[in-house]
Each structure stands twice: as structure tokens, then as C-alpha cells.
């Protein structure tokens, strides 16, 4: 990139060619007033405030900084008399009709308009005009729009369209009547990401969750990590008098560039929910009684000891948390493996897909990743396979749209449903495949790639070890068969194959629909094969293109809990538990000797053991297996047999209700530690408030119990735990808690030099497919997935989110609905062989005929009660609404 030298206000700076003066100044901490330019939005040039004096090629003229590119030798002056006179006039116009409501405006103190007026020393203008006084629009639970404060800078419109892809608002009318609004003045109907609020330079958009509970200058701002999905956005908690008043974003922190989704920005009210568990609870005669910490700890310790003495430690099961920190999960597995002497531990994500850890590790070993999720922004091709980006990992959608905007990336989306991913890609190919056909579809794509020579076959032949097996495996794929089984036309398969193999970076993201299919494991392996094909072919010294592959996991720390070894088969850092040398290393580090139980994976499947009555006690930290485990009946059956259950949680979950003792745990806002996101990036939490009520952090609770049981878990701060993780988990060896303050940690990057020269070996799995159909009595097939608005107890206890999305729903294809005489919004019963649940119908074409979809994110509708296999047949009928 060519670099340009210029001077702004006597400061010499260098900027890449094509940069505008405004951005060049921003990058060098030089201030130019301006209200419409925003670095992450396309340039608009509407506010006319960024007027500067520019001398180039010996001519001195006045220019708008945001609309004028830098040039070699240019001299810019930001503060001449003439420039300031212009600016003042512009401000006078902007303020002429403005509401000037600073005393009653929440933006006061952080308002761009107010700041510039103040800087320019504005006096009341020369114009006597009527102040705008249109009614404030409060048509939705989270955002308020006061158009009297709007200066029509267009930032919100661009943010909504470009970043969120929604286009919920636009300029309406023209001339004096121009306002920001919706079509036909309909209520705002959007994803409520709050992007508009975040970029608005004035008080026009307001955060309704804040109300009038604090002024900007009263807040303490604590950056931390969002506790919901697996993207790991940085959010900034604004606190006052020890409570969280709102969440804001900071474009400069973390991986999300200040973009958030509705959960991250508005879903914070659970922190101070009156339903938080505030003291330890002990069940007596079926009723929970509040207890003192000492008593509860003592009781749990005694009881666990008794059980261990009677049956041995391996009758105790432990379920770790996809929501707790790495440090807490690390201590949890250590506690189970050393203090309790059991290896019967797991976490829900691993129960759902036990093959995933191994395959992810494999993709890391092969170097199939960009440095982090943010690498998606550099993609030239995006392939979303079996993942609803918009609902599951919304901010990855923003990153993808950035790639589409900056690199004209192409999009290929394969999903059993017509999912929504709003974007402006020139090529956006949608493969809506039949359930059970994902593997054959993928094989068909690979076949086309090889047969049509869309990749460099020679290079692949020489750089991989068994290309011929892949060739012979796809040779057998019948394209017409694939077409028929998947319902995707050969033409579409071909266009997908072409787009996927275009030169440049290809980013593959797969998710729940792939993983939780009965052929999930094979499909992911074949995806790795595809990734290898593209990677090897696209990557050379001249073309630095790479292929990377990400798995969309469910929770904020679904990756971390597995990294920390809360699974039966691995010690921390994917160290094989059956490997004697590794075990010895850990024994040394922990200063213990494992009891003979700590071996082998298969004999320690928690659910199987529990089913056979071999689990006498269960210790659950920050998880709700009753609603999260795929088969609701099975888990309930298992738990029935268990004598003694301990749960650590912030809320009374379904699992907690069955516990004998419940320990109140702190939420993310009350603790330190780290989360590892779905792109393997480890980021640091910062404690914003002290624990609510008598809650304690999960790691402190574990330490207390361990100590009571006679072990020295004498950690005093997080750093002591992270230091130990560094030693225990090889993949975390380069990890430093202090350094996380400045930069996030990405463990796969440190393995890069180990990737070495061994060639990729294709899995070359022969195509398979399943026929997924309903049954006579239960003609529809149920699938489930994430929701943008909800995720477990946290969202359910956040008022704003509940108002945005009050009710769970079932998506029914419009034709099916018509046949069943179900109308949109009807109350219906969804019934399977195993159970039934009442919810609202949503008639749409998102689900194809024969398939119904229910989000698995609403705790009050535990959809797993219906599910007994991957694709459960159900029937639906209307019921009375009450």
C-alpha cells in the first residue's frame, strides 16, 4: 500500500493512500470536529462541520476533511479563523431548531453536538425559530427515538444497514420534513442490536434500560466480556453505587469493534434481578432453607466424604460449566479428579458431541484458522454450513458483512432452513438441503471441485498424502442422487463449488445443524477435507489465500470448558488421560497421586453410569443439564436415581430445584477470570461490582469445599490459577493473565510452528445420507436452534429481553400451517411421543414444509422434553390460548 506524507496542524503524519483527511487525523490523535463521519461507516458528508483549510499542489482551499483524500505534501489546518467562522455558522444552523434539552437529556456529557457547541463557545444563535417538539417515539422496549434532537447525520441509518444488515430505519420524506424513521411509521421492528444508539452523536436515540438512573460522568466504566454467546464481544459495564446501570460498547476494544447484539447490549438486568439466589440453600423435607455459608459447606463436605467412604469417589459425577470462567472450570476438574477422586466429569457440549474436541484440535493442528474470529473480516468467500449466524453468533454476522463490504466477499449458505442473513454480497448462494443429506451434499460439492478442476489438483496431489483416496471416494458419488436426496439442484451445487474455490481467503463456519445431525462427525471430517483442498490450492507464495474453519459453539465459554479438561477423556489442554507420562506430569504439578479410577474414557460416560444407577452424587457448577441436555426425559430419569445433588448457580434453574444444596454463585459482572471464545481467543473479565447478596464466585466455592475436605486449594487470586493452567495445559503455556489486559490470547497461533511439514491426510469418507421423515401420527420433524434474543436463565431474567421476545414459538411452514388450519400467532401444542409443550405459532417460509423449528433458548419452554432422537417427529394442533 502506498503511503502518503502530509502535515496536519504542523504535525507530520503518514497515511495510506486513499484515506480521507478525517481518518488520517483520527489515526494520529488529531481532533477535527465532525458529527457524521464514523470510521466504521461509509462516508456520508452531511454535517458540514469538518471544514478544514487544505493546501495541496500550491493551492489553498477549504475542504471537508471526511470527503477529501490525503495527498503527498498536503498541508492541513484545522483551526484557522476562517475555518472556525464556518464551523460556528454550521453549528448555528444545527442548533436553530434543535430541542436544546441538555438538562433533561441522558446524552448530556457525552454528546457530540453539546461538546462542539461548547468548544466553539457558541452563544445563542442569530435565528429566532421554533424549537422542534415532535412526540418522542417509544414503540419498543429498548430504544427511544427523540427526533427533536436528531441532526440527520445519517450514522444510525448506515449502521443499521451496513453493519447489522437490517435497514430498519431510513431517512423519510425530504426537505424540512426529513426525519429518521420507519416505513408507514410502523413500530421499530428489528434485531435491537443498538448499533444506532451506539453511533448517534446526539441524544436522539436513548437506551431505555438506563432510564434516568445515572449521568455519564457519574459512571465507572469497566470493560469485560459478554456472558452470552460464543463470540466473546467486549462490553463496557457502566456502574454507579455498586450496581450496573447500562452496557455500552467501545469500538477500540476486543474483537467486535463496538458491535453487539441485543443480548450483549440490553441483557444486563439479570445481574440485579430479584430472583438471584442470594444465600446458600439447604433442602429440608423438600423445602429449601437459607443457610450460612459455613453450615452449607460443612454439610456438603461431610456428605461427599460419606459417599466416598461408602462407594468410592467414582460414584460422584461432576458437570462443569460452559458459562463459568476457564479458571473455575480448571479448578472444578482438579477438584473432581483429586479431592473427589472421580473421572466421571463432563460438560454439556461434550455430551452432545463427544467427537468435536478431537476434530477441533485436528483443525488447529492443520493450521486451519486465521488468527481469530476477526479474521472473518478478511475473507473473500464465506461458507456458513448448518449454522444460523444471525441467531447464534450475531456479531460474526457483522464481521462477515464487513468482509462483504471491504473485499466483496461471496457468500454460500447451506442450511436445512431458509435462514436469514441480510447482506449485500454480489453472489449469495443458498443451498437449502433436506435433513440428513448434509454429508452427501458436501461430497457432491467436493466431487464437482475435483472433476471440474476448480482447484490445483497437481499441487494437492503432491502436498497431501492420500489425495487418491479422496478422489476414489467421491468418484462413487452420484450427482443426480445427491441432487435428489438433498433437494439442491446440481446448478446450485456447481455455483457453490465455484464460489468456494475462488482465490483468496475462504472462511468456513459450521454449527449446530451440522454437529447434531447423526452424520455430524463424518460431515465435519469431510468439511476438513474440503478446507484442506481449498487451503492447499489457494495458498502459495504469490497467493497468500488461506482456508479457515470455525465451529459455532453455544455458550460464552463452551470452548474454554473443554480446553480446561472438564471431559472424561482429556486432562487440561487435550492431554490424553490414558497417557501415563502425561498423567505423571500432572500428578507432580498437583502434588498428588491419582487414584486408580482416573483412567480410560468409555467407562466414565456420566449419563450411561447414571442410567445404571452408578452415580450416587452429582456436583453441578453453572450448568442446567435438565434443560440443556438433548433428551429431557433421559436426563430426568438419570437424576432421579441420584441421592445427593449439589448445584452452584446464580438462579434457581430446573436442575437447582432438584438439588439438596444450592450455592449462590456470582455472575460475570462480579468476577475476574477468562473466557475462550469459539475462535479460540482467550479474553479477560474485569470485576465491575461486588458479589450480589452473599453470592461467591464459583472458584471460591470450589476452594472452600476442597479445603473443608482437607485439601490445600489455597488460591487467593485468579492469577495463581492462571499460572497453574499455564503449566498444566500445554496449549495454554504462552498464556499470561497480565498481558491479557492489553491483548487477547489465541492458543492455536502458538502451535503454528509445530504444524510442520507432515502432509494432510484426507478422511475421504464415502458419502452417506439418511432419510428423515415424520411418522403417521407425528408427521412433522422438529429441529431446534439458537435465538438472538434469548439464551438460558440470564436472558430470561433480563426484563428488556423478555419484553423484546416474550414468548417461545414454533416456526411452521405456511403450506403446512394452512393444511393444519393454523394461523400465525395461534396458540398450539407441539407434541412428540415423549411429551408436549404449548407455544405460539409463527407461520413463515423459513422452515421448509415438513420441518418445524423451535428455539432452544427459552428456559420456560424446555424443548428437550420432546426430544428423544436427533430429528424427533412431532405433531401440532391448536389449543386454547390461556
Amino acid at each position, binding site marked *: 500500500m502506498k503511503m502518503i506524507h502530509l502535515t496536519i496542524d504542523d504535525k507530520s503524519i503518514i497515511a495510506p493512500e486513499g484515506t480521507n483527511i478525517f481518518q488520517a487525523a483520527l489515526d494520529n490523535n488529531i481532533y477535527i470536529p465532525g458529527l457524521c463521519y464514523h470510521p466504521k461507516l461509509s462516508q456520508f458528508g452531511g454535517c458540514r462541520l469538518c471544514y478544514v483549510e487544505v493546501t495541496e499542489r500550491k493551492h489553498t482551499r477549504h475542504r471537508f476533511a471526511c470527503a477529501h483524500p490525503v495527498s503527498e505534501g498536503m498541508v492541513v489546518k484545522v483551526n484557522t479563523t476562517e475555518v472556525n467562522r464556518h464551523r460556528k455558522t454550521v453549528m448555528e444552523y444545527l442548533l436553530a431548531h434543535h430541542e436544546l434539552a441538555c438538562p433533561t437529556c441522558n446524552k448530556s456529557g457525552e454528546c457530540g453536538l453539546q461538546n462542539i457547541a461548547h468548544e466553539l463557545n457558541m452563544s445563542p444563535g442569530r435565528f429566532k425559530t421554533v424549537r422542534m417538539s415532535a412526540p418522542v417515539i417509544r414503540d419498543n422496549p429498548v430504544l427511544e427515538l427523540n427526533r427533536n434532537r436528531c441532526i440527520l447525520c445519517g450514522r444510525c441509518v448506515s449502521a443499521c*444497514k451496513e453493519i447489522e444488515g437490517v*435497514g430498519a430505519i*431510513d431517512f*423519510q*420524506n425530504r426537505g424540512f420534513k426529513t426525519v429518521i424513521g420507519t*416505513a408507514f411509521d410502523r413500530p421499530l421492528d428489528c434485531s435491537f442490536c443498538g448499533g444506532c444508539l451506539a453511533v448517534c452523536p446526539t441524544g436522539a436515540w436513548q437506551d431505555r434500560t438506563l432510564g434516568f438512573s445515572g449521568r455519564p460522568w457519574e459512571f465507572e466504566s469497566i470493560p469485560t466480556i459478554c456472558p452470552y454467546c460464543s463470540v466473546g464481544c467486549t462490553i463496557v459495564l457502566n456502574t454507579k453505587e455498586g450496581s450496573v446501570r447500562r452496557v455500552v460498547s467501545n469500538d477500540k476494544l476486543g474483537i467486535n469493534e463496538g458491535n453487539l447484539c441485543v443480548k450483549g447490549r440490553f441483557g444486563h438486568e439479570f445481574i440485579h434481578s430479584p430472583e438471584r439466589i442470594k444465600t446458600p440453600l439447604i433442602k429440608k423435607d423438600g423445602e429449601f432453607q437459607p443457610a450460612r455459608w459455613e453450615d452449607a459447606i460443612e454439610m456438603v463436605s461431610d456428605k461427599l466424604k460419606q459417599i466416598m467412604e461408602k462407594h468410592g469417589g467414582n460414584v460422584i459425577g461432576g458437570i462443569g460449566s460452559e458459562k463459568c470462567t476457564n479458571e473455575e472450570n480448571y479448578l472444578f476438574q482438579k477438584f473432581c479428579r483429586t479431592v473427589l477422586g472421580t473421572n466421571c466429569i463432563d460438560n454439556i457440549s461434550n455430551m452432545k458431541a463427544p467427537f468435536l474436541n478431537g476434530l477441533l484440535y485436528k483443525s488447529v493442528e492443520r493450521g486451519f484458522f486465521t488468527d481469530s474470529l476477526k479474521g472473518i473480516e478478511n475473507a473473500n468467500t464465506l461458507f456458513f454450513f448448518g449454522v444460523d449466524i444471525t441467531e447464534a453468533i450475531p456479531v460474526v454476522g457483522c464481521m462477515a458483512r464487513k468482509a462483504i463490504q471491504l473485499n466483496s466477499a461471496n457468500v454460500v449458505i447451506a442450511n436445512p432452513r431458509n435462514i436469514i442473513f441480510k447482506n449485500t454480497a454480489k453472489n449469495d448462494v443458498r443451498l437449502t438441503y433436506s435433513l440428513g443429506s448434509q454429508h452427501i451434499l458436501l461430497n457432491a460439492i467436493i466431487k464437482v471441485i475435483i472433476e471440474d478442476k476448480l482447484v490445483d489438483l497437481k499441487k494437492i496431489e503432491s502436498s497431501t498424502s492420500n489425495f487418491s483416496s479422496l478422489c476414489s471416494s467421491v468418484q462413487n458419488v452420484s450427482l443426480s442422487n445427491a441432487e435428489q436426496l438433498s433437494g439442491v439442484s446440481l446448478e446450485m451445487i456447481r455455483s457453490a463449488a465455484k464460489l468456494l474455490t475462488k482465490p483468496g481467503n475462504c472462511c468456513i463456519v459450521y454449527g449446530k445443524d451440522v454437529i447434531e445431525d447423526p452424520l455430524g462427525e463424518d460431515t465435519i471430517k469431510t468439511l476438513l477435507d474440503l478446507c484442506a483442498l481449498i487451503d492447499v490450492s489457494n495458498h502459495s507464495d504469490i497467493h497468500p489465500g488461506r482456508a479457515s474453519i470455525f465451529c459455532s459453539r453455544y455458550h460464552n465459554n463452551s470452548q474454554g470448558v473443554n480446553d480446561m479438561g472438564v471431559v472424561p477423556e482429556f486432562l487440561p489442554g487435550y492431554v490424553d488421560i490414558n497417557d501415563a507420562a502425561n498423567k505423571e506430569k500432572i500428578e507432580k504439578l498437583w502434588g498428588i497421586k491419582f487414584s486408580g479410577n482416573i483412567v480410560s474414557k468409555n467407562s466414565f460416560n456420566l449419563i450411561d453410569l447414571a442410567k445404571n444407577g452408578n452415580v450416587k452424587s452429582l456436583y453441578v457448577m453453572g450448568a442446567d443439564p435438565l434443560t440443556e441436555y438433548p433428551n429431557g426425559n433421559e436426563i430426568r430419569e438419570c437424576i432421579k436415581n441420584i441421592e445427593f445433588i449439589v448445584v452452584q448457580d446464580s438462579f434457581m434453574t430446573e436442575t437447582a430445584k432438584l438439588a439438596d444444596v444450592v450455592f449462590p454463585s456470582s455472575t460475570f459482572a462480579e468476577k475476574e477470570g477468562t473466557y475462550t471464545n469459539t475462535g479460540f481467543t482467550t479474553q479477560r473479565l474485569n470485576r465491575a461490582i461486588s458479589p450480589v447478596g452473599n453470592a461467591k464466585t464459583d472458584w471460591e466455592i470450589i476452594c472452600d469445599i476442597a479445603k473443608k475436605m482437607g485439601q490445600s486449594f489455597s488460591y487467593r487470586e485468579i492469577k495463581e490459577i492462571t499460572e497453574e493452567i499455564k503449566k498444566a495445559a500445554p496449549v495454554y503455556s504462552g498464556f499470561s493473565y497480565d498481558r491479557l489486559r492489553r491483548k487477547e490470547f489465541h492458543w492455536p497461533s502458538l502451535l503454528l510452528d509445530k504444524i510442520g511439514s507432515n502432509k494432510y491426510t484426507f478422511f475421504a469418507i464415502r458419502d452417506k445420507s439418511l432419510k428423515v421423515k415424520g411418522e403417521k401420527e407425528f408427521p412433522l420433524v422438529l429441529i431446534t436452534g439458537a435465538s438472538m434474543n434469548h439464551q438460558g436463565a440470564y436472558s430470561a431474567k433480563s426484563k428488556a429481553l423478555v419484553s423484546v421476545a416474550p414468548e417461545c414459538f414454533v416456526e411452521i411452514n405456511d403450506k403446512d400451517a394452512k393444511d393444519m388450519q393454523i394461523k400465525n400467532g395461534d396458540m398450539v401444542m407441539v407434541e412428540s411421543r415423549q411429551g408436549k409443550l404449548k407455544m405460539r405459532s409463527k407461520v*413463515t417460509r423459513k422452515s421448509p414444509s415438513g420441518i418445524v423449528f423451535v428455539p432452544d433458548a427459552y428456559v420456560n419452554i424446555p424443548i428437550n422434553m420432546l426430544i428423544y432422537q436427533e430429528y424427533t417427529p412431532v405433531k401440532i394442533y391448536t389449543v386454547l390460548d390461556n
Partner: protein
Amino acid sequence: MGEINTNVAEDETFDLSKAESILEKYKHIRGSLIPVLQAIQFEYGYLPEKVIDFVSGELNISVNEIIGVATFYAQFHLQQRGKHIIKACSGTACHVKGAKQIVEKLSEKLEVHVGDTTKDKLFTLEEVACLGACSLAPVIMVDEDVYGQLSHNTVGNVIDGIKS
């Protein structure tokens, strides 16, 4: 290619077939919003809300953006229009000669606000700035005919004349 329209029309009684054939023609041409809106207005006489929702889904452009465009141009109408369009001038010359009373009278007689259409769908009342016939001020135009030198007493006759 591209996103599939997943919206389901709630009201099936509304005739979308004309819109369907228009979209058939333009769907795959980028940047065809304005010609589509023009064709829709030609067929339906205005831009009906339901048709716009349908267009939005099919073209994959948000309805808010479409209406943003439609309200920017004076040529598009969001309401059904009357058989006759009355353009009452409010330009400078007419204003001086009492255009305000003329509009008030019209609005009273037709029982509509400026910009709206009478219940019987016969008249739409609009205000324009200068019809270029200032020497005849105050002026109104009904469809293609100009009526000048009106007063609030005589303007009603124009309407009655057209009605009969």
C-alpha cells in the same frame, strides 16, 4: 440466488398478481427499485402498503428503505388517489391573493386535509408552489385544467361543475 423471501402475506385477499409480474421482469436487475415503484404506481394508482411489503421481500430491500426513497420523490403516492387531482397553488403570488382561504375552503367543502383523498375517491387535494400562472392568481388546477382569479366564494363552483 440470494436470500429467499420468508415472509408470508397475511391477507390473501389483496391482489398481488400485478406486482408479481412486474417483479418477474425486474427481480434480477440490480438498482431497479425506482422503475419497479413507477410500474407499481402505474398499475395500482399508488403504492399500496401490502404491495410494498411484497416488493421488499422479493427484492430483498428493507421496506423502510423503499419508503425512504418513495417519500423523497414527489411522484410517488402512498395513498390511493382520487379520480381528479386538485392542485391548489400556494406560491408567492397566489399566497398574496388569498390562496390560504382557497385551500381552507376546498378542504372544508371536500372534507379532506391537504394531501388526502375524499371518501368517494373523487378528489385528491394537493398544494403546490406556483403553477406558472401567477397573473391569474389565485389559481388552482384540476387535472389538466387551470382555474384562475378565484375567490373563496367561487372556488366551490369549480368543484360542483366537475361533479355534475
